């Protein structure tokens, strides 16, 4: 049974997954420095993708697929016609740099889905990535979280612009649905409701 929750017009349901996730082959290379925006500093030991991994990634010949950001950038020519048919989505890790996606795909909305992989549920970078995709880069299609996705983060994911959630396989998506509505009236403006509470209500004078 599917463990995917989809939010559509504010209604969350368990949905079947129309997409196939394309994974990178395991890397033989040591982890090394991730050169992000903070090149000199960010010695966080996160994986960077090697050229070998990119070349060895098996891309299915047909169907709707979500490819790793690094593969999308390096092998875009192979995917060109399928991108035009809206059959290609992109996924990225929380430590990857959004600007790399935007530079390579100025019109993000040709991608029917962007998916963010969260390795550990306590990694809150995913919330900033969602917020930036929605507010800075104007992304309008499906935004999905997958990986270590648990129900107690769903409310924050929803508010940060995510519209689908691949709940970790050993947990019940059905149970998780309830947590999308943990709070009815949040204080601050965010992606799903840009107006803070003082703009939405007359709280008196």
């Amino acid at each position, binding site marked *: 049974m599917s463990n995917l929750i989809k939010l559509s017009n504010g209604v969350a349901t368990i949905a079947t997954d129309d997409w196939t996730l394309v994974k990178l082959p395991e890397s033989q290379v040591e982890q090394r420095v991730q050169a992000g925006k903070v090149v000199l500093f960010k010695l*966080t030991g996160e994986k960077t993708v090697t050229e070998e991994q990119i070349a060895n990634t098996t891309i299915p010949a047909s169907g709707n697929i979500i490819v790793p950001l690094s593969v999308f950038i390096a092998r875009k020519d192979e995917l060109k016609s399928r991108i035009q048919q809206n059959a290609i989505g992109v996924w990225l890790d929380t430590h990857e740099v959004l600007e790399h996606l935007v530079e390579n795909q100025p019109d993000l909305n040709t991608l029917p889905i962007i998916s963010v992989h969260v390795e550990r*549920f306590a990694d*809150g970078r995913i919330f900033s990535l969602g917020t930036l995709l929605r507010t800075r880069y104007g992304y309008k299609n499906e935004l999905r979280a997958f990986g270590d996705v648990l129900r107690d983060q769903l409310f924050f994911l929803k508010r940060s612009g995510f519209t689908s959630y691949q709940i970790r396989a050993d947990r019940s998506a059905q149970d998780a649905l309830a947590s999308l509505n943990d709070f009815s009236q949040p204080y601050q403006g965010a992606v799903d409701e840009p107006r803070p509470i003082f703009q939405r209500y007359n709280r008196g004078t």
Partner: protein
Amino acid sequence: MYKYDKLDQQIVDERVAQYRDQTRRYLAGELTDDEFRPLRLQNGLYIQRHAPMLRIAVPYGMLSSRQLRKLGDIAKRFDKGYGHFSTRQNCQLNWPKLEETPDILAELATVEMHAIQTSGNCIRNITTDQFAGIAPDEVIDPRAMAEILRQWSTFHPEFALLPRKFKIAVSGTQQDRAVVQMHDIGLEFYLDKNKKMAIKVWVGGGLGRTPILGSVIREHLEWQHALTYCEAIVRVYNLHGRRDNMFKARIKILVKALGIDEFRNQVEAEWLNLKDNPNTITEAELARVSKHFDTMPYENLSAHDAGFDNSIASNPAFAAWVKRCVHPHKQAGYRAVTLSLKPHGKAPGDATSEQMWVVADLADTYSFGELRVAHEQNLILADVKLGDLFALWEKARANGLATPNIGLLTDIICCPGGDFCSLANAKSIPIAEAIQMQFDNLDYLHDIGDIELNISGCMNACGHHHIGHIGILGVDKDGSEWYQVSIGGKQGNDASLGTVLGPSFSAEEMPTVVQRLIDVYVQERTPEERFIDTVRRLGLAPFKAYVYAKEEIAA
């Protein structure tokens, strides 16, 4: 003070329900320890040495008598009949049962209280000056902005899981009492040249393992942009702060690594996209929240009170208390009063349920039913008439709340330490008690004068030892407890970090070590010179020489 409307109440009630379900799932085995940890921490619940510890939020230190009474009730019903007031202006219970914490939170919600974000890697309780709203040197009462920031930071979805904890302090006085320079963000409110409220923004300060004073990221920010500017700062931190090593995960490490100029460039670039978004604070919202902090209905009193003057003249004990525990007030005929939670030989910052109830009654009788928690771990009645001080003193004294030691050596700032905290390397409370007993002579204490002594049981620095004039840090050496001593730290506008004297000491040596530091000061001081001034003038050398003069240590 701020009163909840139904929207505020709904959020707190929904939080209780959410946390109750999380706890149920944990106890049922549906959540692992690792999965439950950030959830309980963001509700203030630590798993400690003997029992869980629950940290209850006291937003910017403000409490009503009704709330304090409830804290006393909760400590009686769910704990051992006392609570601990912390250096973050919060209240901690040391012995609650995990299964009962949802019920405690439900009780708190009935008096508009909670434990939201008192721990965990999120934006914590916002702190400020305990004399906010009444201090004569205050330029702007920062409490309305503190409340607006509290609401904004509560369950902020983008900043729910930061690399590490994040602390914001606000102040609006000439003499900083909120230690804005040692917070992740410090907001210093002032009136700009157009007489408009503006903010000087500090970033990247903090104590802990790597003590660093903050840097100014913006000299002038219009108040309307406080939330969006903080969003820009926290976003840069959320994306780029280290997550691989918790000891290098605070924003201060990022600011230091990038340099303040590069960090500023990134924040300003981010802010260009956020400026003027709907989170921009409106005049109407500021006015609405400010109403809750309107001036109290003061009587028109003369600046002098004959009865008060007589009591001072005739009662030296009362006079000594007034000298240390009574503070100036912007309103003629009124004073602020510190109720000392530092009686000699007791754990600093602890109050029993009975004391909380007494203080609640005192607040109702003498101070408009409100009080504050100071980051020095005392309780404050902010609006007391001069003519009421004597009666207040008698009642406070009868309940162990009138030790006239505020600002003196025995007004020790101290974390719970190894007796309670599982992070601690060493005990801190017994050291505080031993020092208090060593100096248990009020005349001598008054002669020593203004001095701050801070004790932390580990480098997480909850006792703020880096900014104590004398700072004591518990360290672990081969499994036994030792104490490293530093001098020359200071809070305030001219904040500084202390310098370590040398090799650490055993617990038994500590009263003598402090005694020797004081001896050097008393011998070397010029008239009117405080301990910190003498240290700054002479440097470490004479203190170090005498403290380590081994042959005389028996003296």
